[in-house]
């Protein structure tokens, strides 16, 4: 995938996000859901954003699209699209961007489709709102769009209500709507999480072909490293609102440096491993985003954590391979990290025991043990 989009001279990033912060004001304080994220996107490129539930993936993609509506939101930083700053634009000014330049496909197709309106009308209304086309032209385009997302017999399916379709077909309709006005960037937020593995495979293939045909860029949000592994050019790993590691996909898998990335990958059962292979587990839950831990936000769950980690925030810094960045004091694979892990294991630190496959330590044990060995 490296040849697909990266290393394309003259293909400058058209979407540049810098130090983006999205904070929510709630009675208990300020939720720092996205806290200083920077990224770039080039034409035809697929960017994967990976992280556990609550890590800020959805808020990040909605913030880039300026879809956070509500009084308690405070967004700072910069989102430049073709050199134009989007932060600060009003919803009315975003109308020329939404659908036409950036579009989104959501996890649950039912929430983005209107259940009492035929899918055809949902498509044609969208087309007529954004493009200056007649009713009959819009219907013809809608049928073609349904055909392009491989809906069988689109001429009759166009008159279906969403509930008359399977989950996979509904997601195809959502993709058709998102593609209708030929956006340059498609945001796909867990587009297949609600679907069966065979349907997921169909939808991911569909997104990939459409992307290739349209030379479109894609930001794919998922909690599943497997979904983006073969499909993204670059992956960003998020934890507690921050980017903890970022790398071209092949580099990330070959030289992952952040303990959280490693933990995510090692906790997934792999089809290539024989039955009864031991898994490495992560104890605990992501931190409170109102009062995050003072040092590294992963420290309470990290099998490598040392005293320094609890005190000093690691900053995102470049690694030895171009495009690789990570934020960690004891990067995976270094002698310092190995020593740290062994020290924690010897001291019986629960998170380290769980990473080593001990099933009897559980979240309970975290309460009593604070800090590294």
């Amino acid at each position, binding site marked *: *995938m490296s040849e697909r989009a990266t290393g394309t001279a003259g293909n400058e990033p058209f979407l540049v996000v810098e130090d983006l912060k999205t904070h929510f004001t709630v009675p208990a304080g300020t939720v720092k859901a996205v806290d200083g994220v920077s990224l770039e996107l080039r034409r035809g490129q697929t960017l994967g954003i990976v992280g*556990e*539930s609550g890590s800020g993936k959805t808020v990040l993609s909605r913030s880039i699209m300026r879809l956070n509506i509500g009084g308690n939101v405070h967004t700072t930083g910069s989102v430049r699209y073709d050199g134009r700053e989007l932060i600060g634009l009003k919803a009315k000014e975003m109308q020329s961007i939404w659908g036409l330049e950036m579009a989104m496909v959501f996890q649950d197709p039912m929430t983005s489709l209107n259940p009492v309106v035929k899918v055809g009308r949902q498509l044609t209304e969208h087309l007529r709102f954004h493009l200056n086309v007649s009713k009959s032209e819009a219907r013809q385009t809608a049928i073609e769009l349904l055909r392009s997302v491989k809906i*069988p017999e689109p001429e009759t399916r166009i008159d279906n209500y969403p509930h008359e379709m*399977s989950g*996979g*077909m509904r997601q195809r309709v959502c993709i058709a709507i998102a593609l209708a006005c030929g956006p340059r960037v498609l945001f796909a937020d867990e587009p297949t999480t609600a679907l*069966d*593995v*065979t*349907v*997921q*495979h*169909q939808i*991911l*293939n569909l997104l*990939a072909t459409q992307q290739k045909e349209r030379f479109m860029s894609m930001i794919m949000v998922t*909690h*599943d*490293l*497997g*979904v983006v*592994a*073969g*499909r993204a050019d670059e992956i960003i790993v998020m934890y507690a609102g921050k980017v903890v590691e970022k790398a071209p*996909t*092949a580099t*990330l*898998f070959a030289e992952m440096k952040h303990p959280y990335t490693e*933990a*995510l*990958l090692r*906790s*997934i*059962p*792999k*089809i*290539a*491993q*024989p*039955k*009864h*292979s*031991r*898994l*490495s*587990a*992560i*104890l605990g*839950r992501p931190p409170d985003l109102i009062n995050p831990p003072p040092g590294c936000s992963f420290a309470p769950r990290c099998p490598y954590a040392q005293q320094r980690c609890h005190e000093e925030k690691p900053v995102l810094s470049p690694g030895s391979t171009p495009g690789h960045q990570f934020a960690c004091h004891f990067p995976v694979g270094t002698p310092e990290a190995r020593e740290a892990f062994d020290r924690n294991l010897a001291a019986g630190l629960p998170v380290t025991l*769980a990473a080593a*496959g*001990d*099933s*009897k*330590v*559980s*979240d*309970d*044990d975290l309460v009593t043990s604070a800090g590294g060995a």
Partner: protein
Amino acid sequence: MAGSGRAHLRPEDETLLRVEHLNVEFPVGGGRVVYAVSGISFDIAKGETLGLVGESGCGKSTTGRAILQLPRPTSGSVVLNGVDLMELDGEGMREKRTDLQMIFQDPISSLNPRRTVGEVVAEPLQVWGPHDEDKQWDIVADMLEAVGIDPGVARYKRPHEFSGGQCQRISIARALVLEPELIICDEPVSALDVSVQAQILNLLEDLKAEYGLTLVFIAHDLAVVKNISDRVAVMYLGKMCEISETDEMYANPAHPYTQLLLESIPEPDPLAVLDDRAEIEGELPSPLAPPSGCRFRTRCPYADETCARVEPQMRRVSEDHYVACHHPLVPVDETEVQIDV
């Protein structure tokens, strides 16, 4: 799918549970019937984990619940330790309930929110266990300890004060207090984050070794099922396609549907080739009117006229590997065909 037949069953004295010709039908009004499970047979040996996989709606949960007679299957036999549960009356079945337990997908909502964790785990003992409360608590505390929950901390707390993963540990403790013969786990990790899923899978493996548990493990995630199962059965639209020792099935899938399922798995490997993999075409047919012959034929790349006419029977591929398909992907032992009536 495609198939019926019993060639894959082992001698009865080697197994704990033997299910034969199981049919579960749900009348849905207007004279229409959902054929949820149609004529499947399988067995489980003591201490074994049988994985059940297949797409949503293929009948996995219905099969699991049919073992517990919830509801009573339409026909067939479910023999546990030599006793056919289908022939027991309500009272007889009530007694057997101590031998069979179930763990569900949604750990938080499957635990009673108004009771303390101590009470929730002790619940099965109230009916079937010792009546002495101290004795009950000793058993409960041991079980909580075994699943990695601090009994002292948990006793007076309520389930919603725990995370999803911890609630699943508590459900497992509750399922274990009566030392059941068989535990049906219906998608026990599907609602959990991957980090927590790994904890629960490791825990089930350890408990299995410690207590000699026998499990039916239902899931739609094939990598999860491979990790935990000794044997795997693949279901499609109420039928059983293939049953085999786990590593053998994943290495040499014999059924076209199994192969398509395996090829659909998104692998966390950036070098995995994606573009030339076959994708399963079309939509799942309705269980109200399943296709004739092989139920998979409407989506099978190898289907021919025989597939539409004749239902394939289970045939032997190798030691502990059986498939129900007229055109299997690996050669089968033709002599073992066994026609069912």
